[in-house]
């Protein structure tokens, strides 16, 4: 005998500011949750990379080794390794615990905009302004990439990896999807320089934001447009966009200091979250909970669905259990 399915709740949006972290590392170029969402990684323009506790906002470790500002970071699925890329044209593989540089990979001709592990952290993929994506092997001691994807005709701005696919957004206005299993390259022409690309969590759609202040949701298999989200400002900066934890909303940074929330299906603006006065440059959505990280200038803000105090109580209990803590009961 099965219990009836719980009625689908109205998705909660992370609109309450939980805390602000002053990172003390210059401008925060990118902010990222780790794989399970318990930690926060920030890339600073002072060449440092910092690891924070997401719940308390305390600094756990600082990774130094880059020669110029750090532009992107990704953590491995087991939290044992980090990879980061920088304007110094290098990609660095870090050991999380010791903070040592495991490998420093040179090869890009220009600054490296984005970096990503694959699912098993056996390959690092880095996209650079030189128009190439390089696939680095983390297993072997080789310092040459496994493969160089040089199909893009301009710099690579964004890169995502799924189980067997690489999604690469380039300034040449195209989103390229390399399907390793099929051995195919799908090129979607967007027209305007791409700033960020994402897979949807169900893996069926791709999200791409471009410099024409538009975020587009495309069907992955056919390339047809499922939704077009606009209203924000994105004309010059490389701004992030993402999908919420349940694929219900599309989020994008904006140059006007807000984070825009659109309903994915209705294509309507749900929330315009005021973050600050400057450009919201980077954001990261928690993999399972309605929590959001935004970075603006030198600080990172953590946003949650409920106000601070209750969240704080809940976090004492939680650990792994989502949303069903005493706080929820109290409420």
């Amino acid at each position, binding site marked *: 005998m099965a219990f009836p399915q719980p009625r689908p709740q109205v998705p909660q949006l992370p609109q309450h500011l939980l805390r602000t972290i002053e990172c003390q590392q*210059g*401008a925060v170029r990118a902010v990222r949750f780790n794989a399970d969402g318990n930690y926060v990684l920030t890339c600073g*323009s002072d060449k440092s990379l910092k690891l924070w506790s997401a719940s308390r906002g305390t600094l756990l470790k600082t990774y130094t080794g880059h020669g110029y500002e750090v*532009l992107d970071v990704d953590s491995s699925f087991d939290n044992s390794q980090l990879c980061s890329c920088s304007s110094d044209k290098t990609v660095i593989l870090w050991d999380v615990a010791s903070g040592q540089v495991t490998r420093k990979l040179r090869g890009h001709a220009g600054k490296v905009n984005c970096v990503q592990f*694959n*699912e*098993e952290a*056996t*390959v690092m993929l880095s996209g650079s302004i030189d128009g190439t994506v390089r*696939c680095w*092997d983390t*297993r072997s001691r080789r310092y040459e990439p*496994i*493969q*160089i*994807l*040089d*199909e893009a*005709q301009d710099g690579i*701005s964004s890169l995502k990896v799924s*189980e067997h696919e690489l999604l690469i957004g380039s*300034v*040449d*206005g195209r989103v390229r999807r*390399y*399907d*390793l*299993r*099929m*051995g*195919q*390259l*799908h*090129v*979607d*022409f*967007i*027209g*305007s*320089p791409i*700033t960020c690309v994402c897979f949807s969590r169900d893996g069926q759609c791709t999200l791409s934001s471009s*410099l*024409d202040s538009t975020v*587009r949701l*495309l*069907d992955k298999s*056919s*390339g*047809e*447009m499922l939704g*077009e989200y606009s209203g924000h400002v994105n*004309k*010059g*900066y*490389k701004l992030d966009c993402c999908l919420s934890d349940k694929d219900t909303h599309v989020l994008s940074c904006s140059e006007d200091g807000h984070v825009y929330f659109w309903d994915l299906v209705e294509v309507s603006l749900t929330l315009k979250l005021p973050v600050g006065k*400057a*450009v919201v*440059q980077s954001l990261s959505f928690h993999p399972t909970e309605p929590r959001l990280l935004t970075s603006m*200038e*030198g600080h990172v803000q953590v946003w949650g669905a409920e106000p601070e105090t209750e969240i704080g109580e809940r976090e004492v209990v939680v650990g792994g259990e989502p949303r069903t803590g005493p706080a929820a009961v109290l409420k």
Partner: protein
Amino acid sequence: MHLKLVCQPPLNTEEEEESHATHTATVLAVNMASDEDSDEDFVTYGTPLEPLEEDEPVRKPVPVHEQTVKDEKGRYKRFHGAFTGGFSAGYFNTVGSQEGWTPSTFVSSRQQKAEKPNIRPEDFMDEEDFSEHGIAPREIVPTDDFASGKKDQLKDKARAVSSLAALIPGDTGLLEELIAPARSSIGVELLRKMGWKDGQGVGPRLKRKQRKQNDDAVKVYGCAFPPNGSEESEDEDEFAPENVSFAPKDVVPVDFTPKVDSHGLGYRGLNPLQALGGGSETGHINLFTLQSDRTTSLFGDRNSGQQRRGGIGGQAFGVGAMEEEDTDIYHKDSMSNYDNVLGGEEPGDGLYGWTVYPPPDLPRDYRPVHYFRPVVDSSTVSPIVAQALQASRGRLSQDAPQQGRHSLDSSQRCDMLGETPLQGPSSVFELLGSKDRERLNEIPAVVASAKAAALQASSETQMALKAWSGPTADASKTFKPFAENPLKQARYDLYITKLKQGNKDALESSLDSSMTEWERGRERDEFVRAALLYKPSNSSLSSRFTRSKHEDDTDSVDVTRDQENDMDDKQAAVKMKMFGKLTRETFEWHPDKLLCKRFNVPDPYPGSSTVGMPKVKRDKYSVFNFLTITDSSQVSRGAPSASKPPSSSSTLPHLTPEVSNKKSRWDIPGQEPKDPLSAFLSETRSEVLAAKNQTDSPHQKTEEEEKEEDEEEVRPPMDLFKAIFASSSDEKSSSSSEDDSEEEKEVAPPASDPIQSSAETLNPPVSAQSTPAPDISRLTGII
């Protein structure tokens, strides 16, 4: 009834039994009835004890541990286990040594290979146990019953025949006789029992008369026994009484002696009987005679009264002084020995059935001597020598087929063979429809404009002229840029020589007039460039360098096979938000094997060695390159204007008059509407363009629009040219790729103009500065 169980021998008498009854080990006597019954009633079991001697001392009983048991062959047997309470690993009556099983280690090296142990269960068994387990003895021994029987004469004869070819001539199986078994075989025994006698043949008895008639009637085909093989019996033939049947004659077994020596067929060595026995009836030893003759002499005549003379005689031995008559010691073979007629009479014409053809007529200037013409590359020798060669042979060797026939083109082959050119349609234009031809006829106007542009490069020609007209190094020392193509090199040399002479139209006159316009145009460019590059000052330098042995093919370039197609359609599709088919393109892409492995994905193209996009080699110079030659100049000109500061971006680069003039009908391949949808798209595109131009510069818009419209109707479809010039269907020219990218650079800005231009002007482009560095630095400054 008496039952007596006794361990005593039954031969003992009753008295004895009674007397010894005291010390018999076990005597069970059950006397059911009276004692006086006879001994026959006793049934005895067991082995009786030895009879005791009266005076023999009582022997000590042998203790158990000293008792031994022997088997039937007298070998000691040993009890194991329960009998003796001991454990035996098996030495005395099993296997191994005193220590039991000897552990052996397997050792094998390259020098000493280990023997493959072929151990059978029999190795561990006693011979007497074989029968118990049904293992038959392995040796194959003819039993006496089946051993060969008495020596029979026939066999001897056969052996004698074979012995001729044996190592010891005349050996009739002496050795075999020595060891012959005494008894005859079972077959012979059986035959004997059936009435057969030695020396007879096998079979029903025959009447002699009959048999003889049969012999006469029989016609023998193929191999038959020599007729005199049965000479012996001929004598008996006379005796043929009626009513008497005879056993059939015995048959000499056919000799199937295998040939084991390396002598010629039919050769036999000197027969010592004949050679030393002093002559024979043949007079000389013929080493090559029929075997049958020899058998005859062996069988029949050896013992027949043959007079023997002493001494050595025969051919090659000369005639001794004691010889009476001169035997012919020199073997003279006369032709009469041979039958030189095959079949019947020979025909009188002497042709023997052959058809005779007359010999070929030789040409008048035929000389029965062949000489090789010296092959000299005209460009390597001085002009005088070359001229002399040319005069002597009428042709220089440069078009001699030294590169192999495959490197020649059809016209060259045609020249060499002295054929008249084909009469078919001389050009592709004749294959075109009249309408297309009209269109093409309008090309020269455009080509002329292109030429004008090219003539703009006449300054280069002038420079080349200036560089070469001086009294500098001779042509033989100059660098040969077209060494691969001797004809082309020859033309280039001609051009250079004319340049040196100061000839102003050196270029035009040195080109091959039979070539097509675009070929000539291409060569024109190449020559001028080469002349400038390798001008005399450089050539003095170039003489210091040797050419690399293996020159990479500079005429081809690696190009990705699949190219993105039309940009304009996509732009328009994006404008109309028609994402999907129009904006999506799918290419074959080969991931690296290792990458697949790391991603836990099977290699999608197993066996393929390519990585990335499949590449193809493409001619640097193809038709399409020529067609876009003006386009490249346009780009080179457009590039600086594109890199102008953004302040001047209000006047768009592609709208500057000089560039728009340059815009030829050839530069955008595949822009033709292919289907209604793209037609529709191009319409909207032009609308968009028009709208945009209106905002930008209204007076130029009309010009542009008109031009575009003109082009739309004038331009022949690109597919036509591809069909004509492209060698295969899947090929796409590199030019189209260049085109695309160029086009992209050029066309993309206006399409995404409102956004792009503002993006460029207001903010730095993403690729250059994608991060808000200025703000941050300000901010950090504040902090």
